[in-house]
């Protein structure tokens, strides 16, 4: 009975791990989409109203911040660095891209800033497409590996 319970527990751990990894893969995609929304919004505010960054960030809705992975109080956000500092960026590629974007944002004239936003959007779109196309395969692999791993542990130990 105890052996059966142990085997079930190991199998459940495998399932939970698969669920966690798949959730993380989905979250990475959502985060990239959040960054794209954010950059698009900033681009519009800069293009149409030449709005300063602190004000443009203040006008951004909460959902965008949440999609980016920012859950703290938004009162402290004045620059994009403040925002990124409060997010756990799941994908190293996206982290590097957004850090570069934040370092250059607000430090140039309008046409330069619009070009920066466009370039960042294009690269984020590439990342999003690649993540979206890989996601089903990744989910299957995560599920299969975790469950098979758990099964193997059960067989070897029981």
């Amino acid at each position, binding site marked *: 009975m105890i052996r059966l319970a142990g085997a079930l527990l190991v199998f459940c751990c495998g399932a939970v791990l698969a669920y966690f990894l798949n959730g993380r893969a989905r979250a990475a995609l959502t985060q990239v989409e959040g960054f794209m929304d954010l950059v698009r919004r900033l681009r519009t505010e*800069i293009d149409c109203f*030449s*709005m*300063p*960054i*602190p004000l443009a960030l203040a006008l951004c809705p909460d959902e965008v911040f949440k999609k980016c992975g920012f859950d703290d109080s938004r009162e402290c956000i*004045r*620059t994009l660095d403040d925002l990124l500092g409060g997010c756990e960026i799941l994908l190293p590629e996206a982290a590097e891209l957004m850090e570069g974007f934040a370092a250059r*944002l*607000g*430090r*140039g*004239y*309008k046409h*330069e*800033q619009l070009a920066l936003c466009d370039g960042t959007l294009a690269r984020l779109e590439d990342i999003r497409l690649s993540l979206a196309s890989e996601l089903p395969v990744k989910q299957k692999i995560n599920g299969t590996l975790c469950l098979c791993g758990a099964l193997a542990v059960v067989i070897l130990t029981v």
Partner: protein
Amino acid sequence: MAVVIDARSAIRRSPDDKLLRLFPVGLRAELDGFYRRGTCIYEVRLRAEKCASIVCDTGNVALSCVLSRAELAEILTELCEHSLYAHADTICGGYITLEGGVRVGVVGRAAVSGGQVCGVYDISSLCFRLPQRIESVGENLAAMLRKKRCGALIYSPPGVGKTTLLRSLVARLADLDSSAGAMRVAVVDTRGELGVYLNSKALCVDVLSGYPRGIGIEIAARSLNAELAVCDELCGKADVDAVIQSRNSGVPVLATAHAQSLEALMRKSDFRRLHEACAFEYYVGIRRLSARRDFEYDVVSWEEADQLI
């Protein structure tokens, strides 16, 4: 008429000023030292790879702090609230105006397109001009303008105190508590320097912040029913046309211009045109005496000016 003004009631800016926090620690400490010794600082000048300096009562004083180009760029980014593009128009015009009427001159390597500056890169100098609140200035001039309901042009070389005098005149003329009565004054504050210190509740002032002078003067005359339109640093055809239009509509204009003397002022074609159009009844020249805080001004009527030239 020549009046000597003692302006020793100048109010010094506090060392806790927001502006000071933008400066690197070393520079801040040096400036703090000057403030503690009671020095009245008029300008703080930062130059890339060169000694920073201040302008105070004793003239130009060098500081030991030397800033790099990167540090100047960082200060500019902070001044612009991390949004350089939002200040592009004024930066291309050579300045940024900060909260509290502080004007920062910005120069570097200009990018020019079609004869117009479209960007300034590699910032090499930042010149912070701190506005002075001098309350004892312009009493006689304000009384004259109030009595005669006329316009005047204040002229002097840069940094003598035109804007300070203008601010003081506006506060006096628009004072609702004044026994002599208040005038409805419209202030066209293109560079965000005139509106500062005009925060008393008993002022009959409409401040048009950021409006180009020509448009602002037109609005003052057409929409605000102003008894006096005020603007700083007239230059260019659009400004001249607007002043003439306003004068012809019955709204006198109180303005300032850069000139060494009345003769030099009249050698400028735009001001010659203003004179010929009788746009100003009086010309007011300002001069600083030996100590920077004391200055005098000469008031010359249109007729006297006409004879002089």
